[in-house]
């Protein structure tokens, strides 16, 4: 006599939720908007892809679960529960696991791609303050995000910002480490990773915060490299030549001699962004976030104390501005942005870290493209 299906009292069946729409493509699977049939709560369900996993449950998903069970903060996406779809003939005997999150109406990339959405200076301050506050919290808990980009910054309809997608995140220590440098979407990847640094730290997330901050004005990613080499060229053109004079020890990095680094470039962060950003405090903070040398890049604590947040106009809640928009805005669902050259998608590392985390990191697994293939961005630099 076959025993009845096992029950998981703490691990509810996925049929508890009813899927409403696909809203995104996460690091290791699809994301759906869904509704709790009983409580009528709206949630986001992230599917953990088990196909092609020779090593069982992906270690990246395991890290995301472990990390999000510990991180509980207003500016971090809230993991509600984990649920499992039973292996039945209906789903071809594949048992699937879903991470269930509180639902957020928008992501920053989606908002920025909609010209109807306009942020004033005080609102931009609120976005950046919440973003840096989230980074301060995770870094104090010894966690690196490793995938900062506008599409991973969620914003609720009342204007609360949440860092999301911890699919590449991991714990770090202050000891000498050898992590994989195949992390962070290319356009947001800091120079130390591009030069092969494996003993990196929280500064990598602050570079991404700088890129996102600039994007608040430019409305498109500021440095859209097609290859790692191209990305380094774009960085040098904006932040100045990468030399041992301004960055002690950079010449010791594995790829320093293997990459072509433009010489004689002057640092032009403030000048070039001035066309978009008029506020002097904003320009100064951007300059500090986009510092080449990671050991001199501003940390989240000092960034939060920067005058940008403490002079008029002070940070202002987004709920008023967002109340004018009653449609969800996600990058995944956004219509193509106007004009702009077509990005190479297939094979070009522009779409995400090729191959995903490897090294001591784990089984890797194919990382889906970070951007909607139909998504075109206007070139900034």
């Amino acid at each position, binding site marked *: 006599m*076959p025993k009845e299906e096992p029950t998981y009292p*703490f691990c509810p069946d996925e049929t508890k939720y009813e899927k409403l729409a696909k809203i995104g493509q996460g690091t290791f699977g699809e994301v759906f908007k869904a509704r709790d049939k009983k409580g009528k709560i709206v949630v986001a369900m992230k599917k953990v892809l088990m196909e092609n996993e020779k*090593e069982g449950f992906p*270690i990246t998903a*395991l890290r995301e679960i*472990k990390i999000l069970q510990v991180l509980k903060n207003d500016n971090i996406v809230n993991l509600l529960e984990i649920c499992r779809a039973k292996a039945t003939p209906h789903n071809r005997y594949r*048992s699937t*696991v879903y991470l269930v999150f509180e639902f957020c109406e928008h992501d920053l990339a989606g908002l920025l791609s909609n010209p109807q959405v306009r942020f004033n200076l005080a609102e931009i301050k609120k976005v950046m303050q919440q973003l840096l506050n989230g980074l301060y919290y995770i870094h104090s808990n010894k966690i690196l995000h490793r995938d900062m980009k506008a599409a991973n910054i969620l914003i609720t309809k009342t204007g609360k910002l949440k860092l999301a997608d911890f699919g590449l995140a991991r714990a770090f220590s202050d000891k000498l480490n050898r992590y994989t440098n195949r992390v962070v979407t290319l356009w947001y990847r800091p120079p130390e990773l591009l030069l092969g640094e494996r003993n990196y730290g929280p500064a990598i997330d602050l570079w991404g915060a700088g890129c996102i901050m600039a994007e608040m004005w430019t409305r498109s990613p500021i440095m859209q490299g097609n290859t790692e080499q191209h990305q380094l060229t774009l960085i040098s053109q904006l932040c100045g030549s990468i030399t041992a004079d301004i960055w002690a020890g950079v010449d010791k990095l594995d790829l320093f001699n293997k990459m072509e680094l433009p010489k004689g470039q002057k640092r032009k962060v403030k000048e070039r962004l001035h066309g978009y950003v008029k506020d002097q405090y904003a320009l100064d903070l951007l300059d500090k976030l986009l510092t080449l040398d990671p050991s001199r890049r501003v940390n989240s604590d000092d960034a939060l104390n920067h005058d940008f947040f403490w002079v008029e106009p002070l940070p202002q809640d987004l709920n008023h501005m967002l109340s004018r928009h009653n449609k969800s805005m996600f990058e995944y669902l956004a219509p193509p942005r106007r004009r702009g050259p077509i990005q190479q998608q297939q094979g070009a590392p522009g779409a995400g870290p090729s191959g995903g985390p490897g090294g001591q990191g784990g089984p890797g697994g194919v990382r889906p493209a970070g951007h909607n293939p139909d998504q075109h961005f206007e070139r900034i630099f």
Partner: protein
Amino acid sequence: MFANSSQHKYWLFSGETELAKHRAEANKTYIEHYRQGQTDEEVAKFFLTPAEERILGRQYEVVLRKFCSEFQPPMPKCVIGTSLAFFKRFYVFNSTMDYHPKDIMLTCVYLACKVEEFYVPIGQFVKNLRGDREKFADAILSFELTLMGKLNYQLTVHNPFRAMEGFMIDLKTRHQELHNPEKIRKYVEEFLDRSLLSDACLIFSPSQIALAAIKFGAAKESISLDGYIKTVVLRLASDKEAENTLYQLRRVKAIVKSFEPTTREQAQAVQKKLDRCRNQENNPDSDIYKQKAIDKLNAEDDIPAVKRTKISQDNGS
């Protein structure tokens, strides 16, 4: 932090009595499901009793620890601690008749390697086993999700090793009467190793286990750390709290010391019984399990076929 961890919230029990109650319930649930009108006498002959299940569980904990200590590449202590914690947690609410400890044991170690960032690919992992390695790999991977589910996805384990190192540093800085704390290390570590085979991690916090190890490790060198514990560690505690802590330390010692190794004969008799009363649906060697795997493979083969029909339909229209 341990204080707001899932371990503190969900995986600490009041004591052996409560653990025995949960285990007896798991035993009873399984038997009620499969007895099919057997009399109590027949049940006692056919199924394992809670006591027999404990013999089996304890024996596999010893096997697990041995497997870990011989593992190549050598694994850090926290991987051993986490593997054993997973194993013990699993069998608080599940019967060994439902899931055979030999399958769960290996899956616990494999999962603990991932969780503790000591990642070993499955191919390399099973090289530590003798026999049909492919079969072992299949079994481990097929039980992984079940194990995670039964652990309620609460995978962070706080082991006593870090707390112990903390106390060693504290002894050096705040208890300098003890000139060379390193001389008690050997006994302290022995105590922690023994604690891994007891239910201590299901009853006490890691720091209680670590402090007990320090206290009773030092006692072996004829050193009393009672003064350090009362005036340094418990300096800010009320009399009642201090008394309770000392009581808990004695309890840790009693539980760690109470471990009795099972004899070969005992274990063999139980194993024999288990071969007949175990749940065949969870036995990778059984026909019913193999049939399920075949169904699964066939179902997977169907996918391209379905897609192809769809494409040809599209072409036709």
